[in-house]
């Protein structure tokens, strides 16, 4: 299950295999060509593979399923150990026995988004029409397309109504889209550190990342896999720029300040003198080991196109009109990527639509990434909301708790 970068000149398909071999161990569902995913942009994805993970057990009434939606560069490995990186899953702190997403009580599902690169069909997958990887021939997908694919998976798993759909950032957008597209299939929704649409600033940052990838000569108009190369430098720069937006000024200052990296004085060069430079370079390098550059183009584009109100005549309230779903909206004080004002817009729309909504702004100086970290108030909020919703849904307490 270890990953090694493809050697120069390695066969393209071998390289793809090496990159994605680690993910092949997980659960997959294949939808044949007669069950296509038709995208918002008019594209057709068929056949479609969805890679997913589950934690816990689906109860007899099939009433305890929770769908966790991952953020931009996340994947289906929400909990446990990630097979590619060896690190804990992205919401490991929240998913497990006795944790807010209590796997002794709930059946937790997490899938890789369509357009992703961890086993679900995406731009690195083989295009059956050409026998080569899709590259930019892959249809541009939207958040709604990602949710459509998830609905196909949920159908496959025999779940009619999800007890809860939760996610942060791009995952929060999916949670909102779920509640809007399938109001009868979502009992509770937790959109966290997210926005009802991508702002101009959000689009701008994503465009910087995409341009960095496309400017790398190894990108080769998206056909790098066949050439046995990868636009590592471009993708690393994209990640470095994005990573800054996930952190707050305060958090950066506290962690790095102006501290120098393994040296007593500046070198008067363009070395990574400062710790923050070294840190960002490391983040960029680690990222290219696990993520496909074309996938990055597609998932960032999906976020940019997200504007939930636009699908409902410009009124976000109409998207949730008459919704019976219980919502818990959470934002973080130092998140400047998807600030509290964006969450408030969601809350106002939900109120106007008459929906049941809780809203908490969590005090944190950790920036956007706070939604992935342990914050006592954040956890207490989630636990309280899920507890109340579960008892309203009649989901039995976990056996561990009952005994």
């Amino acid at each position, binding site marked *: 299950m270890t990953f090694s970068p493809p050697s120069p000149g390695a066969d393209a398909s071998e390289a793809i295999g090496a990159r994605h071999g680690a993910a092949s161990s997980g659960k997959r569902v294949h939808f044949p060509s007669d069950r296509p995913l038709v995208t918002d942009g008019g594209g057709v994805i068929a056949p479609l593979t969805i890679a997913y993970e589950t934690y816990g057990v689906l109860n007899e009434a099939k009433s305890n399923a929770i769908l966790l939606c991952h953020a931009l560069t996340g994947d289906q490995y929400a909990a446990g150990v990630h097979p590619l990186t060896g690190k804990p899953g992205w919401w490991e702190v929240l998913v497990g026995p006795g944790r807010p997403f209590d796997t002794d009580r709930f059946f937790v599902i997490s899938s890789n988004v369509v357009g992703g690169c961890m086993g679900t069909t995406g731009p690195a997958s083989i295009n059956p029409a050409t026998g080569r990887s899709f590259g930019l021939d892959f249809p541009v997908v939207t958040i709604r397309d990602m949710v459509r694919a998830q609905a196909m998976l949920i159908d496959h798993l025999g779940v009619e109504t999800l007890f809860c759909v939760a996610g942060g950032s791009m995952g929060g957008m999916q949670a909102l889209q779920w509640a809007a597209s399938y109001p009868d299939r979502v009992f509770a929704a937790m959109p966290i550190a997210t926005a009802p649409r991508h702002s101009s600033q959000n689009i701008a940052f994503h465009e910087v990342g995409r341009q960095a990838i496309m400017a790398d000569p190894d990108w080769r108009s998206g056909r790098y896999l066949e050439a046995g190369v990868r636009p590592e430098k471009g993708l690393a720069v994209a990640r470095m720029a994005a990573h800054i937006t996930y952190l707050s000024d305060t958090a950066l200052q506290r962690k790095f300040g102006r501290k120098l990296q393994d040296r007593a004085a500046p070198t008067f060069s363009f070395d990574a003198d400062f710790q923050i430079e070294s840190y960002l370079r490391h983040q960029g390098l680690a990222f290219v080991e696990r993520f496909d550059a074309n996938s990055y183009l597609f998932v960032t584009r999906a976020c940019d196109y997200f504007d939930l109100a636009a699908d409902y005549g410009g009124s976000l309230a109409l998207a949730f009109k008459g919704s019976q779903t219980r919502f818990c909206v959470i934002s973080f004080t130092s998140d400047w990527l998807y600030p509290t004002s964006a969450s408030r817009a969601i*809350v106002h729309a939900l*109120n106007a639509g008459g929906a*049941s*909504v*809780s809203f908490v702004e969590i005090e944190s100086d950790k920036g956007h990434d706070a939604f992935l970290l342990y914050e006592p108030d954040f956890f207490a909020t989630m636990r*309280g909301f899920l507890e109340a919703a579960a008892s309203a849904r009649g989901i039995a307490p976990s056996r561990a708790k009952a005994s």
Partner: protein
Amino acid sequence: MTRGAHKRSDLAVVADMVAPGSRVLDVGCGDGLLLEMLARDRRVDGRGVELSQRGVNDCVAKGLPVIQGDADTDLADYPEDSFDYVILSQTLQATQRPRVVLEHMLRIGRRAIVSFPNFGHWRVRMQLLLHGRMPRSTNLQYSWHETPNIHLCTIKDFVDLAEEVGAVIERGMALDLVGAPFRVAAPLPVMNLFGAQAIFLLKRGRALETSTP
């Protein structure tokens, strides 16, 4: 606008005015004590708005649907007739624009319930008369320069405001210093002199102005 953690005598009286099974918006719901009472004893579908993060966190952690918000700015976002009751308990005097808040309450809810400390109570009057200082009491604990209570009023003042906004007073009652309701319906000047707190149940008296969004 956070309610104190101390036991609040007016809450039981307020809860008593709410019909079982109704939809309630509690504005300035504090740590959710009233919402809990209403849900438990009267099967009320309750929602809350609270300014303090501490209060909101406590409520949501208890499973109450509460959002962080400000009575002065956020009530405008609620559609009309979306609740059976809108409750403003011990919060009116802390709002920037009590009249606007009251108008929104009557627009959003079929009925409004307002409780507030009575600045016309005889001890308040005596403190100002005899000592020449801003009054302080169990219901008005803050010194003048720290108080969040920027719009204190007497029961008579409130009755005037209710009339101004075209509300019909369905019930009005005063609580004495220990929080017990007056046994007999007292005339207004007596309520205003001896009531330490007042609680009013109002309903809309005239049609909604169509200009309201």
